[in-house]
């Protein structure tokens, strides 16, 4: 196999990886916030439910969650699914799973905002919603950024799990090349592509960190 063919295969897989990555971020970043807010809610049943949600989704392998999402419609509800469904199942599972991880990070960030900030907002008459959106959230963003970095970088590589449902992302392409070509070269290239992706993420993160550096408390 020549280098061009190999790169072609890897990059076609990379496209899928990036789609999973992007959709997961776009979906789980806000969803995680809702989960975190539910988790911190004073309405006990909601809080406990969210605690259970977080616990189960963090506590069981993502691969099994994908199986559950993918095969539940047929095995539980008797609904036939089609060829597009595995990708949809992958995306749903990833979004939900990462929302659970993000929720825990948000929770710690929200709890770390000094009480004085809430008190000032309360006295000024901000509603809980306004307090959250205007006072808490912008400060939380700054605080959770490093922990988010870890998860986002993990997500890049977790996209390889999509193969469990037959979705051909980059790592699986690399694996196929490795087994058929009997050299680890494709893995090395894949690792490089992952790394470059993570470097870009790190760069973006650092950029945001810098932009938020205009203040400290």
């Amino acid at each position, binding site marked *: 196999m020549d280098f061009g063919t190999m790169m072609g295969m890897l990059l076609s897989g990379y496209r899928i990886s990036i789609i999973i990555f992007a959709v997961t971020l776009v979906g789980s970043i806000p969803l995680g916030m809702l989960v975190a807010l539910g988790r911190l809610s004073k309405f006990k049943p909601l809080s406990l439910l969210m605690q259970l949600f977080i616990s189960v989704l963090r506590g069981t392998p993502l691969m099994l969650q994908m199986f559950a999402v993918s095969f539940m419609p047929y095995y539980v509800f008797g609904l036939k699914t089609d*060829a597009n469904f*595995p990708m949809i199942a992958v995306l749903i599972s990833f979004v939900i799973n990462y929302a659970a991880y993000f929720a825990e990070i948000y929770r710690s960030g929200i709890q770390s905002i000094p009480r004085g900030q809430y008190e000032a907002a309360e006295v000024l008459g901000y509603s809980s919603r306004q307090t959250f959106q205007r006072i808490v959230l912008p400060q939380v963003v700054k605080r959770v950024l490093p922990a988010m970095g870890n998860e986002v970088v993990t997500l890049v590589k977790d996209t390889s799990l999509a193969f469990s449902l*037959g979705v051909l992302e980059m790592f*699986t392409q690399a694996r196929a090349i490795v087994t058929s070509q009997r050299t680890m070269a494709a893995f090395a290239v894949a690792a490089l592509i992952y790394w470059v992706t993570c470097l870009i993420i790190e760069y973006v993160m650092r950029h945001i960190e810098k932009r938020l550096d205009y203040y400290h408390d």
Partner: protein
Amino acid sequence: GNSGATSSSAGSSSASTSSFDGNFVLGFDQDFPPYGYVGDDGSYTGFDIDLAQAVCDREGWKLVPTPISWDAKDTLLNSGQITCIWNGFTIEGREDGYAFTDPYMENRQVVVVPASSDVQQLSDLAGKNVITQADSAALDVLSEGGSQEELGKSFGNLQTIDNYNTAFMMLESGQVDAIAIDYPVAVFNIGDKTSEFRILDENLNSEHFGVGFAKTDDGAQLAKTVEADLQALDSEGTAKELCEKYADQGVSYDLWCLPKA
């Protein structure tokens, strides 16, 4: 290596090379019944493993069945961490990479569809979603350079998966239309659900299994030794017995193809 390695005829002598210490480390994919898998009692079992055990019994070797990650098989073999790959291991297309024994078993690749499917023959698969295991012989046959390349191109989509168990679930739930698979593996996975799945009469191809060793002098020598032992097992009838033992999982002595000694 040395020239005295033609001990294949007697079948009782052990390989006298420095790197082989009598521990016959058999690398296999434990997700590949009926050749190698976890038996009901939790120990490794399967047609190939039983066969290897018989060889080791003859040679006085110790069989060490070692499940491996398929990704690492070449690296493990080359670095000596496993002695051979013996696991329904197709020779065709791999001749350059390994020191193989002569083929001992014929295998065919078949297509499984749901019993209710309108697919009756291979040509009906045009435009359908077909799935097969990553790095499988079936995939080789259907992709570029394979003997059924044209058929593969006619599919709507040729997907891969890491585990046939998942593939069957996908077939059942409608996410794919057909599975390209080794015949015995198909029989094993269909099990008693014969009313739900159907194997097309038309084969994709036929090919052969061998035992793969590292492509070194030592490896070639071991391959010869094992080959001779297999011939001996065939002549004493052990091979046939084993085939019958796994008959309900799609193995048949009709497919045994090792030339007599």
